[in-house]
């Protein structure tokens, strides 16, 4: 018991932090809530370092302390801290400001459970915990758009969750256990394996916004405050991808799941970017772009168990994705939601404009930026696993991606006369952009410190 709890110290720290934050919110001290959150997240991140090299399970195999869950903490905890800064910049002074911070931390707790889950029950728990908080956050503005987005998100989430639980019951019936580690018993029982697989693809595919379960994402992101959209597009998505990896690496390859995932990946990347190409609302554009990016993650998933590059690929691209996507959303908070707001933006604000160029090129996968290193690992893993055709599709989509992101860049440097809106940028936002841009720029050069 004591040993088990020791390995969970980062999660426990986060849980305690979230509770204390709620207390501070009751006292109406939003600044204190924010500070507590940042301190708690930083502490939890540092505490993760002590258990990073562990490779074990706790509580009877239900919770995994391995490379994936360790790096999930190292990625998601700082990512959440950045999201807190973004939320502070956008929502400071508003009613219920502190609740947002504590909800963000609670969702991240659910995200960590997803990433570390070794058991179907924990998977369900993680999906529900991340879901409930997300619905509440999306409806935060209490206007029509947000309510509609929240409703869509909720209904979609409930159905997807129910389908997932139903499908998982097949696996439970087939193996007699809710542990992933028993999934090997499904070897040679294709129907049961397929039923559960479909369920997991629905449940987690919804969470990660994979095609065809992505419809909620653009509406939810657009209805929510930009900082919340940034958070949802990054933290819950990565948690779902990591959960995918935890489940599928125990499922026998003979059930044919890699091909199913590969097809989903191809559809997700292509549809995401094709739709993004015609958006004029930058938040929606980034929403579709993050749908497409989820497809890239799946290139690592299909190689699980075959290529030694698969897990590092998911982790490295996860880290890169957090930095570049949060950064891009942060710039949207300054510039505005419409593509027209970006006209001449790079000339008015050269430094922030340059940062946006870095984020967008990194999202495209241009070296030597961090996003390129992630995609390199992903492509390598997928080729290694024999999915050359999928990599070719991914590569064609990268060209499409450039077309998508260049639309913003071209607008940013177009010649526009008129009002120069150069109000000073709030400090939390500046800090968040500075951190994300440094990570995006520099981690390409220092990719050696990442897992192998």
């Amino acid at each position, binding site marked *: 018991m004591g040993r088990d709890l020791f390995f969970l110290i980062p999660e426990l720290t986060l849980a305690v932090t979230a509770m204390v934050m709620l207390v501070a919110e009751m006292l109406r001290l939003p600044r204190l809530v924010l500070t507590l959150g940042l301190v708690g997240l930083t502490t939890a991140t540092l505490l993760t370092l002590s258990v990073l090299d562990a490779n074990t399970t706790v509580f009877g195999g239900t919770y995994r302390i391995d490379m994936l869950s360790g790096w999930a903490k190292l990625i998601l905890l700082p990512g959440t801290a950045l999201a807190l800064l973004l939320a502070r910049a956008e929502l400071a002074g508003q009613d219920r400001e502190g609740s947002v911070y504590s909800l963000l931390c609670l969702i991240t707790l659910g995200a960590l459970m997803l990433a570390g889950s070794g058991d179907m029950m924990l998977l369900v728990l993680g999906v529900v915990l991340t879901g409930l908080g997300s619905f509440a956050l999306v409806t935060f503005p209490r206007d029509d758009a947000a309510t509609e987005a929240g409703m869509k998100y909720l209904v979609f989430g409930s159905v997807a969750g129910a389908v997932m639980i139903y499908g998982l019951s097949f696996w439970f019936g087939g193996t007699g256990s809710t542990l992933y580690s028993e999934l090997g018993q499904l070897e040679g029982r294709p129907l049961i394996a397929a039923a559960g697989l479909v369920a997991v693809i629905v449940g987690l595919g919804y969470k990660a916004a994979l095609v065809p379960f992505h419809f909620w994402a653009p509406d939810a992101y657009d209805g929510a405050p930009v900082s919340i959209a940034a958070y949802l597009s990054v933290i819950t998505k990565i948690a779902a991808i990591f959960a995918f990896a935890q489940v599928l690496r125990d499922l026998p390859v003979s059930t044919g799941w890699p091909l199913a995932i590969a097809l989903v990946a191809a559809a997700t990347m292509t549809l995401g970017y094709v739709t993004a190409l015609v958006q004029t609302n930058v938040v929606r554009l980034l929403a579709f772009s993050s749908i497409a990016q989820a497809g890239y993650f799946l290139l690592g998933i299909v190689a699980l168990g075959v290529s030694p590059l698969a897990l590092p690929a998911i982790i490295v691209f996860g880290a890169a994705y957090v930095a570049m996507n949060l950064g891009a959303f942060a710039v949207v908070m300054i510039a505005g939601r419409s593509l027209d707001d970006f006209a001449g933006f790079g000339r008015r604000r050269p430094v922030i404009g340059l940062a946006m160029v870095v984020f967008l090129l990194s999202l495209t996968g241009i070296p030597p930026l961090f996003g390129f290193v992630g995609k*390199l690992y992903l492509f390598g893993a997928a080729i290694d696993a024999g999915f050359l055709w999928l990599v070719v599709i991914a590569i064609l989509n990268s060209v499409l991606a*450039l*077309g998508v992101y*260049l639309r913003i860049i071209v607008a940013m440097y177009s010649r526009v006369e008129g009002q120069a809106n150069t109000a000073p940028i709030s400090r939390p936002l500046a800090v968040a952009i500075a951190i994300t841009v440094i990570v995006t720029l520099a981690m390409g050069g220092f990719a050696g410190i990442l897992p192998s």
Partner: protein
Amino acid sequence: MLPLLSIATFLPIAGGLVLMLRRGQSTQAIHAVSIGVTGVTFLLSLAIWAGGIVPGGFAQVEELAWIPAIGASYRLGVDGLNLPLVLLTTVLFFLSAIYSARLKDRAATFVVLMLMLETASLGAFMALDALLFYVFFEVSLVGMYFMIAGWGHEDRQRAALMFFLYTLLGSLPLLLAILGLYLSSGTFDMRVWIDTPPLTGIAAMLALIAMLFTFAIKIPSFPVHTWLPAAHVQAPTVGSVILAGVMLKFGTYGLVRFALQMTPEAFTKAGLVILAFGVFSALYGAFAALAQSDLKKMVAYTSVNHMGYIVMAVAVAALTVDPKMRAVALDGATLQMVSHGLVTGALFFLVGMLYDRTHSREMGDFGGLLGGAPWLGWAFILSAFASLGLPGLAHFPAEFQIFLATLQVQPWAIIAILAIVVTAGLYLRAIARVFLGEANEKWSAMPDLGRREKWVIVPLLVLTILIGIAPATLIDMIHTTMASLSF
């Protein structure tokens, strides 16, 4: 022992960073930094030259761990193939820095982009790690995109977009090939891939096709050359010079370094097809250039022609079994890269200088300019003669070797020599219409080249003549490597 290669590679971008951090400098100070940095880089490249090369391998190798988990390292080195290109790069960037010294529109950003392009170019040529090569290769695309989009002519946004999308689509297959080579060897070290080509059979052929796709776009070879005229016409002068003089060489360099050296068997099998593409490109480029009335477009299409000869030479080298002929062909190919950089660089500078004065590039708008602007006129005439392959000027020794080897190995391919006749015709026509004939009153007050412009153009002309009459210095260096190639 100083790591000269790394210093030369990163000095330009370091200068650019200083300019970015110390904003608000006067335009003069910015250009002084730009000229100073590119000048020192040029001197450094001379020092690297003095350091010498070794036969059958790379000299002055510098190595540093980068991503040990996947066997990628920072590795630089020089041999007889990339050292001439390094020298060409530093010369052209130095002269470009001098040429752009009058630029006032967002000068700091322009200079930073130019310096970034120099780092990317030097890095791409000297990289001995495939991943590092790819990084530099792509960074150059980004830099060139912004240079065209920011400082180009009327239709620059569309041209820049087309350039970026086209060449990104072109470079991604190379990434596939690199990953394929990596997965079968466990390292990104190009020396290992050259010494023991890791792929065989159908895998090697697929990798070769991917690489050919990439490099054909970059070179550019028919039928994937269509981005080039658009990009050149819209690009600012310095952009055109760098694009034609330096960045097109990534394609031919890659053709030799990657396609030929890393998948030699597949290359030999595909040799005839590649040769046919080279021959057709050379002819097509010449005829397409003949059809142009826009001077810049004409020069751009002659690039397709000249680069076609290089493709021919590399294919011939792969097809022959005689090591002597192979060396002759590859010597010619490498020298042609340098000559083309110098001569086409000069021509683009001159067309740019003419455009600065007249805001026109249409041949029909001019006439009899030689009388009023003898420096401009004679410089153009000399460069044009060099470009059409006149003996005694830079292209002759290169093309002579290429055709010599072609005649020995695949005599039918010699029909490409027709292109020289066409090129001669089109250059003579351009000279006649622009510089000779009846003087157009409109330009009677047009000033001749100023001091800055002479500083740009005279070194190029001197080098063109030097290579033409005494190519031995350069060829000896190239030959050291080419004669020891074993595949």
